[in-house]
């Protein structure tokens, strides 16, 4: 780094402050460019080709996109992604509820908080396996419960009506834990005097929550929103582990669809996969842009 440059070099001395940031940034930027920026561009490029990963790429322009628009699975995946997006947001109020429940000071509460946070630390593969077991017909805990309650079994993961919801519930589990932690720390930053002032003003219970606490959890809510939206669009692991998109493609989502088209046993349509990825990327860019705009505002005002 810069200490390899002789300290007596006066050029270095004069321009140290101007050059230093770039030297510090160089390795990071290099890696980032190689592994993130260039691949994004390449992906977009590949999406205009027909390519099986073995032979030559064949330029087909918007062919992949046109095909995508005519692909039923694409619409199923899109619809499921939408369901994911909407339902995944439930983890925000759920996380808030858990956080409010745990936001007390009794002995051992720290341990409780940690244990509640557990699902987030566990790999989604493990979560997926757990819930597969949970839902398994005949012997899964959930099936047994359902049988006990309704007298009828529901094979959640085999039923196109329920399968996506079943996976989402599995996803909500760790995500709720995540939102919970965000809210717990958000609650920590609330000025206790404000709560006291509200109590002196006669606000209690839900009205206190609604009028005073919630508005001040804005930043936590925003972050929870960002990570949840992004998490829902990335939903790959659970789908892959729990159903692989089945039954008959009814739990397909864009991220898995893309993987299946590009890399699975039955796929190797790299161009088509890339096109799906680009669509997913564009959807996500909407949210990323929102996030950045907000950050920009914060930076400006800081």
């Amino acid at each position, binding site marked *: 780094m810069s200490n390899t440059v002789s300290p007596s070099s006066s050029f270095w001395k004069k321009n140290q402050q101007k050059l230093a940031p770039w030297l510090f940034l160089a390795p990071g930027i290099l890696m980032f460019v190689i592994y993130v920026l260039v691949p994004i561009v390449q992906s977009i490029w590949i999406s205009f080709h027909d390519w*099986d*990963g*073995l*032979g030559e790429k064949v330029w087909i322009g918007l062919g992949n996109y046109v*095909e995508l628009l*005519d692909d*039923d699975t694409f619409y199923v995946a899109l619809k499921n992604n939408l369901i994911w997006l909407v339902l995944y947001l439930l983890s925000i109020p759920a996380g808030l509820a858990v956080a409010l429940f745990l936001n007390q000071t009794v002995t051992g509460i720290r341990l409780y908080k940690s244990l509640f946070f557990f699902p987030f630390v566990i790999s989604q593969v493990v979560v997926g396996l757990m819930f597969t077991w949970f*839902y*398994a*017909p*005949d012997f899964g805990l959930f099936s047994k419960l359902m049988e006990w309650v309704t007298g009828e*079994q529901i*094979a*959640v*993961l*085999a*039923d*196109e009506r329920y399968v996506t919801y079943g996976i989402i519930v599995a996803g909500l589990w760790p995500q709720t834990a995540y939102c919970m932690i965000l809210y717990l720390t958000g609650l920590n930053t609330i000025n206790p005097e404000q709560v006291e002032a509200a109590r002196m003003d006669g606000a209690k219970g839900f009205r206190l929550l609604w009028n005073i606490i919630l508005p001040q959890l804005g930043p936590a809510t925003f972050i929870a929103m960002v990570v949840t939206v992004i998490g829902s669009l990335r939903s790959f692991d659970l789908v892959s582990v729990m*159903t692989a998109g*089945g*039954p*008959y*493609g009814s739990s397909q989502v864009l991220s898995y669809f893309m993987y*299946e088209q590009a*890399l*699975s*046993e*039955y*796929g*190797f*349509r790299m161009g088509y996969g890339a096109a799906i990825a680009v669509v997913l990327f564009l959807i996500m860019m909407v949210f990323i842009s929102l996030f950045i705009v907000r950050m920009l505002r914060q930076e400006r005002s800081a």
Partner: protein
Amino acid sequence: GEITINSDHSDPVPKKAMEELIADFQKANPDVTVKWNNFDHEGYKSAIRNFLTADAPDVVAWYAGNRMAPFVKAGLFEDVTDVWTANGLDEQLKSSAPSMTIDGKKWGMPYTYYQWGIYYRKDIFAEQGITPPKTWAELLAASEKLKAAGVTPFTIGTKALWPTAGWFDYLDLRVNGYEFHMDLTAGKIPYTDPRVKTVFEKWGELVKADYFIANHAAIDWQDAVPQLVQGKAAMYLMGNFAVATFKDGGLKEEQIGFLQFPEITPGIPVAEEAPTDTFHIPSGAKNKEDAKKFLAYLASPAVQAKMNATLGQLPVNNTTQKPKDVFLDAGFTILSNAHGLAQFYDRDAQAEMAKAGMEGFQEFMVKPDNLDRILERLEKIRARVYK
């Protein structure tokens, strides 16, 4: 020299067979050392694309039929016709020769296959007074009887999709015959063809009568076995490898029966499913000479006999001794008399089509009423894939 073999013999039994094979080969060829990379079964299917293009080993395991076509067409497999002719294999491996031939050349070496058919609970059949059905009508009658007795006729687990293809293949082979089936999987016949629809109508007779276990889409084929073991179901259309699992589950050999898939359209020559496993030499191999030695060794009757004894499958080499196992013996007979051998839907059809097709079969088994929509979708994909 040294040869590197990549294969997917990760399950315990195939792994053992492979280990024996390699040990024996090295004993027979002391000048050749073998380096073996064993891959996870599922991962191998995409891994092979990578190492074939990037860093090719000398021998790779793969499958016959359409499955090897993309690699052959991409020039990734070596022509091994010379090994065949030099060792007189055209005759000895006759039954598999067509599935190893593309453009008149041989591209690999088959070493094992196995039969498919309906395994059933002999004791339950006896209890209900059912004789093994020979025709579709008999099968329906037997099913009805079982159902009435509270036994689901067929068990199946379709989560991994491919078990559905067994049903489709057999129904199509029996309804429309081998040639039609091969044309269909080769993309020459539209899925909207009325003959295809007939196949599904037959299938529907079973599906709509609830002759398959419930929730099959949630389970793998192994998870479906307990139904048979526990006597909740009586029949299972499967490959011969399932017998080991039945026995593991607690069934005794005398409880298990095997029957050939019944006749549907009378007079159609009887063809069978017999997926063949193979070894190939990548065109990028470094030591092709010793690799060919390995293939030749693999083709010899004694080697195939020993290997298949371990695997519990059928040798391809027809000069090999008949196996002693009852089920293999039955399979040997069936396959020997078969009018033609299909490799299996997901090996005969192109990958993308296979995937879509099997999804369609699964959907049909859950929602038979969607048939028209399913077929239209498959046709759309066929039109695109085989353009």
